[in-house]
């Protein structure tokens, strides 16, 4: 019973970690550093798992999981969740930047365009320099 609890704790911690990362700011430098550390650990774990397959099973037994394969599967689920979240947030952030960029381009383009189309209005009400200062 205590053994099966251990893997549950690990997986729940992983899920909680995902949730926290989801809610908190993502692109902070220290978050990125943690991601790199996690990646490094992942590589090391990979190498060990390839060199000593039985080690995975031992770890699985220690955590209360029946087979090493099952342990890998559980961790894979966590990793995929992490990946999906990371990608989603990166997309959102990119979308925001793209919007800002496109808006700036559109507004600048519109200034020229509409000045040309309505020269009379521009003459009556010359644009104030307030925009340039903001």
């Amino acid at each position, binding site marked *: 019973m205590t053994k099966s609890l251990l893997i549950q704790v690990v997986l729940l911690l992983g899920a909680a970690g995902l949730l926290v990362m989801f809610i908190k700011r993502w692109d902070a430098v220290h978050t990125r550093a943690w991601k790199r550390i996690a990646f490094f650990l992942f590589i090391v774990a990979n190498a060990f798992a390839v060199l000593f397959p039985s080690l995975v099973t031992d770890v699985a037994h220690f955590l209360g999981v029946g087979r090493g394969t099952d342990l890998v599967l559980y961790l894979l689920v966590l990793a995929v969740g992490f990946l999906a979240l990371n990608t989603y947030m990166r997309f959102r952030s990119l979308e925001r930047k793209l919007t800002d960029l*496109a808006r700036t381009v559109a507004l600048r383009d519109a200034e020229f365009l509409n000045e040309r189309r309505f020269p009379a209005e521009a003459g009556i009400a010359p644009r104030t320099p307030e925009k340039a200062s903001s």
Partner: protein
Amino acid sequence: MPDYGNTWLVVPVYNEGRVIAEVVEQALKTFPNIVCVNDGSTDDSVEQILGTGAHLVRHPINLGQGAALQTGLAYALAQPGAEFFVTFDADGQHQTQDAEAMVGLLRDDVADVVLGSRFIEKTEQVPVLKRVVLRTAAAVSPTARRLKLTDSHNGLRALNRAAAQRMRITMNGMAHASEIVSMLARSSLRVTEIPVDILYTDYSRAKGQSLLNGVNILFDISLRERGGR
């Protein structure tokens, strides 16, 4: 007739070439200042708008209606003398009379934001002014602090300058409507709602939001603000 020289109509346009010129010409009779934001249309919307007296802002790519609204507001805010801002749909379902009534409320300084609602029933017996005052009072009173809006997804909205400057629409897609409402609820702006007529033509109905799109809106909203900056 009051002068609407200080009022700007913001019209997001996406593939509305069939109707946009007519809608704009109609609205120009009342409101001299109109800015159409072409959101990367693939039809002849741009040519149609260029044929009218409306200002045109062109998104280089399609970004979504929320982004188009924000761009239009930014453009209108930069125009000299702009005091009141009305968001207006391009498909011809909104009435300029309703927009006039909304701007009237802003002008009388009884509200900072006026939203159109399809679901408040129009009781013809009550005089217009009285009805407006009653509803305004109900919406502005402190006890009705939590905006009890009946229709959060109506594209017809009127904002004064202070409210327009506060708009930071980040949801590019259709979820911006809910975003605006929740932003208003958190702000100290005086928000009210008046009944508006919607012309449901076959054209606008075909373009309207499907139930499935509602699922998209819910999803976007539930994830809002969680995305990194």
